[in-house]
């Protein structure tokens, strides 16, 4: 768009979730705490006492829904928070005139330093618990003054937490404009699946702007204080976008076939069992990726076997015999789970995916049992994330066999699903023959791209490098597809590229015939398939 000079300020970024939104700017709190000091030391003491009490209450609530290690950890945190040895020094400092947040941080830092200096590894690891406790109280102190975004607002900030996104009311439209952020972040994925327009990497946006903003998340721009012609142009673009989206909708109920007659299997990605309520099973060929991290990210702690079983069964029954591929827990990286993932300096190259699951058999075996039990209710397939060496696949498969035997001994109904792997670590894509005993391959193009290009998914400054259409990435995808075809191993792709109209022709040319996309992109992906020639 060419804009008249007097039409306000334009910021350019990267479209992370296509769409248009017009609404009042709402500034997101940055991660830096914005605790507001109270009028007197007495009020400051009361604020800290209330915050500690509130944090304890939240933990008690979590503990009442938890069991096993999670419950033990929570009980320990509750006991620590309730101990006046911890709060005493902080409250004394506050009474003497210090701010509640500073005094609490300082008191906890003293304890944390003590643990960090411990010789014994177990006690050293408790520093993380103390940091968690510190943060929980700080969160209460800070959020006491924070507001919820009004419905229909454009949320502007450096970045936005997934929990904040989920807590926001998107029913009246609205959008997200981030000065940093990434189109491959977890929040961007959520925005696409909910159809919330989002632009990232806008650079500095004035913090004091308080008016109506126009968010063009098709081309990636934010307009502040626009008037006249600029607004007309924006509306024209928005209308055209909606019209093309509507015409794509016409493809939704048709099978996906390329312009030269090759049928393509179109599956959907599901992040939460509730997602399927909004999807007509007749419009897709099944579920290519059901994530399970959302089950693990709930406030009630790590999920027990029964809750997991019910969630998996619900999706299997909805699919009515069509295949449902469930990915075992893929925590770590940009998807931390309290009580499960560990703090690491380089989490994308650390203990995540199958590595973490194998390191925590107590948690993994519960999921395995839930999956084995759910398998009798439909056409279940199970895949492991972040597999790098064949041994990981074999160990996970052995655990499935062990748990199946135990369930059989106890007379519990269960079935062994086909077990496959995600192809997202370059070691697998380069040498797929080492994994020929896997039942199927599912290419995770988001992680594969970031690892091949050495460009982080959550870093706007290297976003241009993180391109699935780079020849190196496409060549690996083609090699995996060819290996699968030659050896009778089904290969699908479930990353964001599967729903990207620009990437789809390349993926089809690389030999893929199974794509799994977020439900919001199913229609436009089918339209892109229909326009492509292989």
């Amino acid at each position: 768009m060419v804009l008249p000079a007097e039409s306000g300020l334009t910021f350019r970024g990267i479209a992370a979730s296509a769409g248009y939104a017009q609404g009042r700017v709402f500034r997101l709190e940055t991660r830096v705490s914005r605790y507001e000091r109270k009028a007197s030391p007495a009020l400051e003491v009361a604020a800290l006492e209330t915050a500690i009490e509130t944090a304890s209450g939240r933990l008690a609530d979590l503990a009442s829904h938890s069991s096993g290690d999670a419950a033990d950890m929570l009980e320990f945190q509750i006991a620590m928070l309730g101990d006046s040895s911890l709060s005493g020094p902080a409250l004394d400092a506050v009474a003497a005139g210090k701010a509640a947040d500073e005094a609490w941080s300082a008191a906890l830092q003293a304890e944390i330093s003590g643990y960090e200096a411990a010789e014994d590894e177990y006690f050293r690891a408790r520093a993380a618990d103390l940091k968690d406790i510190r943060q929980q109280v700080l969160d209460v102190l800070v959020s006491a003054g924070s507001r919820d975004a009004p419905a229909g607002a454009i949320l502007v900030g450096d970045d936005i937490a997934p929990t904040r996104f989920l807590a926001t009311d998107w029913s009246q439209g609205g959008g997200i404009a981030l000065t940093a952020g990434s189109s491959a972040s977890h929040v961007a994925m959520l925005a696409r699946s909910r159809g919330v327009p989002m632009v990232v990497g806008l650079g500095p946006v004035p913090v004091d702007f308080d008016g109506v903003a126009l968010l063009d998340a098709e081309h990636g721009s934010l307009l502040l204080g626009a008037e006249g012609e600029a607004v007309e142009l924006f509306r024209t673009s928005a209308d055209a976008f909606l019209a093309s989206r509507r015409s794509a909708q016409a493809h939704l109920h048709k099978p996906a076939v390329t312009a030269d007659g090759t049928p393509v299997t179109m599956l959907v990605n599901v992040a939460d069992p509730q997602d399927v309520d909004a999807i007509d099973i007749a419009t897709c060929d099944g579920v290519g990726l059901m994530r399970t991290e959302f089950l693990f990210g709930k406030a009630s702690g790590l999920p027990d076997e029964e809750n997991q079983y019910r969630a998996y069964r619900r999706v299997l029954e909805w699919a009515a015999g069509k295949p449902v591929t469930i990915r075992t827990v893929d925590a770590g990286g940009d998807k931390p789970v309290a009580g499960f993932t560990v703090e690491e300096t380089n989490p994308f190259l650390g203990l995540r995916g199958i590595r973490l699951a194998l390191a925590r058999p107590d948690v993994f075996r519960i999921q395995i049992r839930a999956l084995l039990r759910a398998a009798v209710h439909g056409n279940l397939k199970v895949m492991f994330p972040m597999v790098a060496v064949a041994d990981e696949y074999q160990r996970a498969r052995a655990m499935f066999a062990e748990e199946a035997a135990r369930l059989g001994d106890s007379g519990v109904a269960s079935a062994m699903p086909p077990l496959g792997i995600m192809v997202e670590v370059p070691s697998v894509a380069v040498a797929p023959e080492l994994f020929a005993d896997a039942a199927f391959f599912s290419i995770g193009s988001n992680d594969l791209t970031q690892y091949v290009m050495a460009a982080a998914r959550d870093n706007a400054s290297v976003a241009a490098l993180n391109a699935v259409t780079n020849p190196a990435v496409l060549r690996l995808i083609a090699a995996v597809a060819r290996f699968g075809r030659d050896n009778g191993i089904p290969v699908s792709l479930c990353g964001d590229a599967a729903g990207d109209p620009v990437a789809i022709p390349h993926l089809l040319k690389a030999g893929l015939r199974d794509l799994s996309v977020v439900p919001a992109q199913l229609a436009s992906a089918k339209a892109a398939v229909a326009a492509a020639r292989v």
Partner: protein
Amino acid sequence: MSATASAKVEITHAVGLHARPSVKFTKLAKTFPAAVEMALAEAGPWIDAKSIVKVMAAKAPKGTTLYLRAEGDGAIEAVEALVALVTRDFDEAGEGEAHVRSA
């Protein structure tokens, strides 16, 4: 008149006085009106055995000898009960077994 009691006991639990045992230990100590203190050496320093923050901060690993002393109502019972808890390995099976059980 107030009773006093003291004892020493070796921690044999695999990890030592870690989070879960410390929660049990301090909870039990709090059930007695007597003032209860513990130390890792006979000469002290003595810390409040009812404070999880203090007990954890002692960072007592396996094999540590724990010194206990109590003063006031129920002092004798308090020391007896705490010694028994430590001797029973805090009613916990070994770590490995615990994992199998929770799986």
